[in-house]
């Protein structure tokens, strides 16, 4: 899960995840479904309510979601729509992101916060505020992490990078905000989430002993693609 796969780092992440607690249970009550779950995903004024409804809907069966989707009749029996893969998949990534957003807002992991209004306006683009943990080299510093999701999320990894005018100085973070972390590319799994990615990055910052840029920073920053997912990363260094 953690880049370079050192055992210690991984235990740290697992511990952080454990401390973050069972977020799923706090948001999803899969037993009852609202009569009509066709609430639009993005309306800024009613963001929390909308997200809550969506989160609740997340617990209902996919079939009932499909049945209540506009254009399909909602007969009592559960029947697969003849063939609407695209709309069904669209529902899936939105549903997943709404659930994640809801969980993040109701129970934010320590040191992390998110502008929920902005994120629910555009579910495919989140900015998370991250505060350097106490007792680490980044104590008192504030950073911003940007997440971009495509419609294949969670099967495709999100595009994650630091943004804003304060990029952490770290051996695996380039000055343009790109992060060398294997779970963001080849070790991504759909079982990861925004929360677990944030915690991995927090842990990567917290375990840093020497604040410096990657050795190839200037060349990389000059030559890389704007999208860090387009870089062929080499995960080699297992000391930091």
């Amino acid at each position: 899960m953690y880049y370079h796969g050192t055992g210690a780092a991984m235990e740290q992440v697992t511990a952080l995840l454990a401390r973050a607690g069972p977020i799923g249970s706090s948001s999803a009550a899969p037993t009852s479904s609202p009569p009509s779950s066709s609430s639009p995903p993005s309306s800024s004024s009613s963001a929390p309510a909308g997200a809550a409804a969506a989160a609740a809907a997340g617990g209902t069966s996919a079939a009932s979601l499909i049945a209540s989707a506009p254009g399909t009749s909602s007969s009592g029996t559960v029947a697969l729509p003849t063939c609407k893969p695209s709309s069904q998949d669209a529902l899936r990534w939105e549903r997943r992101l709404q659930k994640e957003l809801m969980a993040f807002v109701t129970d934010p992991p320590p040191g992390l916060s998110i502008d929920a209004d902005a994120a629910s306006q555009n579910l495919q683009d989140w900015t998370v505020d991250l505060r350097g943990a106490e007792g680490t080299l980044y104590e008192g510093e504030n950073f911003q992490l940007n997440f971009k999701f495509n419609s294949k999320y969670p099967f495709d990894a999100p595009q994650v990078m630091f943004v804003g005018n304060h990029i952490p100085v770290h051996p695996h973070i380039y000055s343009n905000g790109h992060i060398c972390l294997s779970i963001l590319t080849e070790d991504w799994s759909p079982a990861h989430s925004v929360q677990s990615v944030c915690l991995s990055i927090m842990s990567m910052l917290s375990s840093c002993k020497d604040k410096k840029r990657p050795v190839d920073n200037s060349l990389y920053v000059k030559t890389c693609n704007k999208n860090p997912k387009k870089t062929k990363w080499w995960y080699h260094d297992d000391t930091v």
Partner: protein
Amino acid sequence: MGDATGEAEAKVDAQVNQDVLIMEQQRQIEEEISEAIPLVGAKEDLLGTLEKEYISDPIYSMKAKDLSSKYSSIRRTRPDGNCFFRAFAYAYFERLLTCKDDYKGFYDIVSKSKDDLIELGFPQFTLEDFYETFMEVVERIGSGDMTQDELHELFNNQGQSNYIVVYLRLITSGKLQRDADFYLNFIDGNRTMTAFCHQEVEPMFKESDHIHIIALSAALNVGVRVRYMDRGDSAQVIAHDFPEGSAPAVHLLYRPGHYDILYEQ
């Protein structure tokens, strides 16, 4: 002066483009594959289809003949790295449609799998998402509310199909970590079992090896017989049963790098 700068830039450009080009090409190949082959195909006559494929290949032709003495049909899956998991799920769910005796035991195992995985430290939040989708399908099969056609359609719906694949990957990872002492004997290098699972089991599109098959078949108590078709000398297509000595409920054909579903005579 101007020339020198131009040259330097060209050099730098070449460095960037190579990375991008490789990945671009890889994506393109993946797309081409995915457009050409359905996630799970229709049942095909085994001998006919393999003979056509290996018309100029005596070794494989011979093996196709041998295979056809035991199996009547084949069902291809998309070679996207998920083929083992997808083939396994399709073949076993298809069997459950008619073989009600196996259902209860399977249902009991999978319905408690979520708690086992959470206990192992999997994040509950994402796990639940996959578990629920997986169980919906299992329950529909159990209640008789699923036809063969519907199952086929479901497995060719990318979203639902991949959710099932993910959940099987997580079950596999859970089994490997729970019995790490045993399974560590099968992996190379100095990786911990957790690292191995994070890198080789949980990510989508990572290919399966023996170790994945052993762990999944053991975790779900579902026997898998894999027929190995390769360039080896034997005129027969060798069978391996997982877990060893079990009665096979699922039959798969392995050709280097890929699994398809087989149907017995």
